[in-house]
């Protein structure tokens, strides 16, 4: 349960970070709090869009999906089910892959680091780790052993 709670909190933070970057990208926010200005360089680069859509918007939608799945997974009727952890692991796994690709672009193509993008990469990485831990915790063998030990 605590893993799903962790995923929910991190997903909410991810939504806020992505929304911040998205609002900047569409011009609703004037400047990014980003130190040396790497965020503006990254956000104004052609790679800030993927398949014609702002990368930050993928973040907002992806984190929103993770939040919904984790909140559903917290409901008493879903507590013992494995699917929420599997789905979170799958979604965040895709997110980690996408973040790695974006980080590669920042380091070797754009040659600028956006700190908020790094924050997002850390968040999605942490969510992925939590999902793996949750799955491990619910491994059938382990669940069976715990069941045997119960009086």
């Amino acid at each position, binding site marked *: *349960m605590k893993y799903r*709670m962790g995923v*929910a*909190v991190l997903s*909410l*933070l991810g*939504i*806020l970070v992505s*929304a*911040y970057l998205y*609002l*900047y990208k*569409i*011009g*609703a*926010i*004037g*400047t990014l709090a980003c130190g040396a*200005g790497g965020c*503006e*360089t990254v*956000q*104004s680069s052609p790679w800030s869009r993927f398949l014609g859509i702002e990368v930050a918007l993928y973040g907002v939608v992806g984190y929103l999906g993770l939040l919904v799945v984790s909140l559903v997974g*917290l*409901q*008493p009727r879903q*507590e*013992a089910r494995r699917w929420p952890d599997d789905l979170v692991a799958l979604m965040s796994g895709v997110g980690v892959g996408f973040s790695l690709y974006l980080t590669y672009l920042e380091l070797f193509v754009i040659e600028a680091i956006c700190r908020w993008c790094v924050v997002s990469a850390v968040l999605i990485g942490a969510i992925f780790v939590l999902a793996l831990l949750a799955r491990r915790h619910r491994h059938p063998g382990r669940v069976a052993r*715990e069941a045997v030990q119960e009086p």
Partner: protein
Amino acid sequence: MAATTRRGLTPFYAVLGVIALAGVALLAYLAAGPGSAGGVPANVVVQPSDTAGFRGYVMGADTAPVEVVEYADYQCPACQGFATVQMPDIRRDLIATGRVRWRYRDFPLSQHRHARLAAHAAACADEQGKFWEMHDLIYAGQADWAFRGNAGGAFRDYARQLGLELGRYDGCMDSNRYAGRIQASFEEGQRIGVQSTPSFLIGGRIYAGALASDRVRQLVDSIASPGR
């Protein structure tokens, strides 16, 4: 493993709600902020070095018999219309033929929050010999950046399109080194009676409003050949 009840989740939902509310409030506060308008300050004290050797951006031959001074604001729609519709004809028929020397001066109006930033971006492009190219891109793209909270990214895109050395451009923009020069240009315009943009100083007289290229040609002809 004991099942969690809905009531047991209440503190967690409360924490989640507080984070969400705080985050949304922060984003709303940032979105309601002034944007990047403050990027280039208007309240600078003009130093002699701001104007030393600089009297505007010039296009055309030094030997041209007539000089036209344009006072303009990159965010002014009439200036945009003039720059994109009339100016190509003027460049071809009057400037390229050696009949007119064109001098562009910044006159950023206070109601246009990105006007000084745009003027500064053009000044930074001028450092790399691309003022007029930047001038054209900024005007051509006015609709894309004028209503954004931040216009700096759009100007940087133009700098990239023009092949400017981006490190130098960024350094120039960060330094605000042309803020005084832009303000000096604005004050000079005020001194000679410019009240709106675009305004043109032709033959010692101010003409306010976007002039048609034919009207500019007519005025230039009347000055170059007063007897006609």
